[in-house]
């Protein structure tokens, strides 16, 4: 299985999008391209399972390693483990859903779909990279398309939000750069420095070096995943972005950070991760609580979901900070679950906004009467967000809590209890918004003439819901997939934790 296809397919699609003319052709090409991605990802998943079933126990499978910049020992090195596969699958679901909900994007459609596909290319490349330079390259590839997507097609104070997002994320990657450079110069492979993730993982980086560079890498990636206090780009960025871009931002982009924190910071610098774990946990708890309470005060549906993303991504960081196998499993599951759930949420908010031209909860009401499908999807997304059993949110959060509870110390117990308590707050804001906007009396009589979802929107929502329900009902599917991957991360930590 040639993993580079994951980069080539979006690239080709993006180029073809530039060549064809008119919205109809452009969106057809984009849809075919993202469907091809979907098929490709499932084929990859299938082959991966086959390999594992055949007893291939290598840490990374389908590796490809080409020399890129020989003098600096920089390689184009890619490969996947279970965690990467899970993230890649998440990406492909969000991409196809994003293309489907943008079906009627009239304005500058060619550029819009080009940027969306380019963004997905960056995400795939990031998730399969095994060389830190390659990884950093794709991380930055995925920043500027977001700036353009928000700035050109966004709403509200879009220029401000776009600039804030671009600068904060680039600030994050600047920190990541310093962390990576520090790692690079402290490696020694046959007398040369190396960016290779696999080689660095087999090396013993001195603990002083780790302690110096772990914060750079972790905070840098953390900015991507709304680490408190660097979360401020999240609400503005998400709420100004056009629907598909919000889905990408919350569904994929924030996961780049979580994945980076886990794969680069924690995996390569385990001693430092152990040293700093209390700080990570405290920050994660603040993000969880602060995000939840801030959501309570929001009146705009997109802001509600954006702030709740801060809270939900806090669970990812909490899981990583706890450093137990179950907690890290939970963190990865939360990434996938939150990615699907939040993409669904933004998609449905976009559908409502397209029809009613408002996102203020106070101006909405009784949508269930006019748009039963959209309203049902909204309720499902909401229930998943508040962690109802049967949906992915419950499984993921539950796993994080289980993993956290394994730590017997009072500090960890308190952190876990605080995190658990936030779910109550989540329930309050989700149920309140749902009750007001979806149920209840019709507020605006003009809304009575609104129509329900079209085929494209139904398909987009169904795909995401299928993902959510599969994870919710048969969670071991996902857990077995990621378990070997988190296992090797934990192995490096095992000697440190009694």
């Amino acid at each position: 299985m040639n993993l580079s296809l994951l980069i080539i397919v979006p690239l080709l699609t993006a180029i073809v999008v530039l060549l064809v003319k008119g919205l109809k052709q452009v969106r057809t090409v984009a849809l075919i391209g993202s469907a091809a991605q979907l098929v490709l990802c499932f084929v990859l998943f299938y082959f991966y399972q086959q390999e594992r079933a055949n007893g291939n126990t290598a840490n990374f499978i389908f590796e490809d390693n080409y020399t890129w910049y020989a003098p600096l020992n920089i390689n184009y090195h890619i490969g996947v483990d279970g965690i990467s596969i899970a993230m890649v699958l998440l990406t492909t679901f969000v991409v196809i859903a994003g293309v489907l909900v943008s079906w009627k994007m009239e304005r500058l459609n060619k550029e819009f779909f080009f940027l969306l596909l380019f963004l997905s290319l960056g995400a795939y490349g990031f998730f399969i990279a095994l060389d830190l330079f390659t990884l950093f390259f794709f991380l930055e590839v995925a920043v500027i398309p977001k700036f353009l997507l928000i700035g050109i097609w966004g709403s509200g104070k879009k220029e401000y939000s776009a600039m804030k997002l671009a600068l904060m994320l680039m600030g994050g990657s600047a920190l990541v750069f310093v962390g990576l450079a520090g790692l690079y110069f402290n490696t020694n492979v046959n007398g040369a420095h190396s960016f290779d993730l696999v080689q660095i993982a087999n090396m013993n980086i001195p603990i002083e070096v780790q302690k110096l560079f772990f914060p750079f890498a972790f905070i840098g990636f953390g900015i991507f995943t709304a680490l408190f206090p660097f979360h401020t780009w999240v609400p503005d960025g998400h709420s100004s972005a056009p629907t598909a871009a919000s889905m990408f931002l919350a569904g994929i982009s924030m996961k780049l950070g979580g994945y980076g924190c886990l794969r680069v910071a924690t995996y390569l610098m385990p001693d430092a991760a152990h040293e700093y774990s209390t700080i990570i946990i405290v920050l994660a708890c603040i993000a969880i609580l602060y995000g939840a309470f801030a959501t309570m005060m929001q009146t705009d549906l997109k802001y509600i979901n954006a702030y709740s993303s801060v809270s939900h991504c806090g669970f990812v960081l909490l899981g990583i900070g706890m450093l137990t196998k179950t907690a890290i499993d939970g963190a990865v599951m939360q990434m996938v679950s939150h990615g699907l759930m939040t993409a669904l949420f933004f998609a449905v908010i976009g559908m409502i906004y397209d029809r009613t031209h408002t996102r203020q909860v106070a101006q909405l009401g009784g949508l269930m009467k006019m748009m039963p499908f959209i309203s049902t999807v909204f309720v499902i997304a909401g229930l998943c967000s508040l962690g109802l059993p049967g949906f992915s949110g419950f499984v993921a959060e539950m796993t994080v809590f289980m993993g956290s509870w394994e730590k017997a110390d009072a500090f960890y117990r308190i952190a876990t209890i605080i995190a658990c308590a936030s779910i109550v707050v989540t329930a309050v804001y989700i149920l309140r918004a749902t009750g007001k906007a979806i149920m209840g009396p019709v507020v605006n009589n003009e809304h009575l003439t609104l129509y329900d979802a079209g085929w494209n929107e139904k398909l987009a929502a169904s795909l995401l819901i299928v993902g959510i329900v599969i994870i919710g009902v048969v969670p071991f599917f996902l857990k077995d997939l990621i378990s070997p991957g988190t296992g090797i991360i934990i192995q490096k930590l095992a000697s440190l934790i009694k």
Partner: protein
Amino acid sequence: MVNDFLILMKQELVITLIIFVLLFVKLSNKDTKNETLINFVNILLALNLVSGFFMIREGNLFGDMFHTDELLTLEKNLLNLGTLIISLQSYNWLKDHKHMPEFYILMLSTLLGMFFMISSNNLLMFYLALELSTIPLAALANFDLEKRRSSEAAFKMIVSSAFSSGLLLFGISLVYGATGTLNFAALSTSFTSTPLNIFAFVLLIAGFGFKISAVPFHLWTADVYEGSPVPVTSYLSVISKGAILFVLVSVLYKVFTPLNESWYNMLFIISVLTMIIGNLFALRQQNMKRFLAFSSIAQVGFILIGITGQSAEGSASVIYFVLVYIFSNLAAFGVINLISATTGKENINDYKGFYKTNPRLSWVLAIALFSLGGIPPTAGFFGKFFLLLAGAGRGNYLLISIAALNMVISLYYYLRIIKAMFMDANENPIEDVKAGWSPKLAMIICVTGIIITGLASGAYQYIYSLVK
């Protein structure tokens, strides 16, 4: 002997040939069409570029005054490439200019000076070549003959370069007094860190600092850039800076090795100041040329970091970055040049709504700015990454952190222009600008260069193999 002379100096000779041909055409007073002459010059420059890749020989001439080898030939080639691109871009401006031959004579004289400067193997030769490359530049800055600002720019330029040449000359005389030689090879063994030598060295660095407009020697830059015609501005910011940087790297690495601790500290301070001040001033500029002037000051700060690396990676990354910088900055200047020549608009606010009327040009400018800002997949990303990585090799992570954060600041002002072009609405945007074949060709070269030189590692590896 004659053979040696012809082969070793072939690049200089071709340029001299062009200068003489233009001189005779001018003197013969015949009505030769400007277009024909421009195309003729462009073809010869292209031939010179191609010939630079063949029959490369290493050797010394004129009693060790002149030295050339494969690396130096490549550096000259890069400058030649940049000049060719600028010449292609200025086609629209020059074809109706009554002093077209003079423009080329002056520009190519400076190029000749830079070639000799790169090849110089002796401080005296270096000084001579530097003057040859500086004095005609001041005349070039004055080439918008009707504009007062242009003469002002020329005056500022001549005064400040005379001052910096004075400093250099003072430094050189002190070096001679202390060591009794000006030959580079001899200097590298006899130059020690006595106070007199360090004083001489500081003067030399100040002279260099003026030419590359490093802070605190940058004050002339913005005014000169703004007043000069756009082709001259782009020439100043890319070619003349590139030449001095090539020389700076080789002089610091090969000649002043005994002083490396003190020059490391000097460069550390200068580069931090240059980045920060260049960035802060670039944030608020309204004129495109002024804006690019300050952004180019900031870029020099990044390049100095690469030099502090003091390794093969360091000098390779600097030369590679100059290559990338030629493509990116000239792509940006190409668009600005075209718009300035056809509409006379040079303010950032004029670029609002530019994407609606000129989508292709907007993308060219956007790609150029992304490359200057260091965004992948453009070559600028690789260039910046390697510069900072080379700097990090010395273990000074404070410097690298400052640089990385400065990259974020610089991104703000590059994105500001992207925002003006793509996002802001404008009642009367710049109308549809028609580019001739020649500026188009220049833009295609630049954009291809920006995309290819980064993703394909060939250019960097070739440079690295030469410096090693």
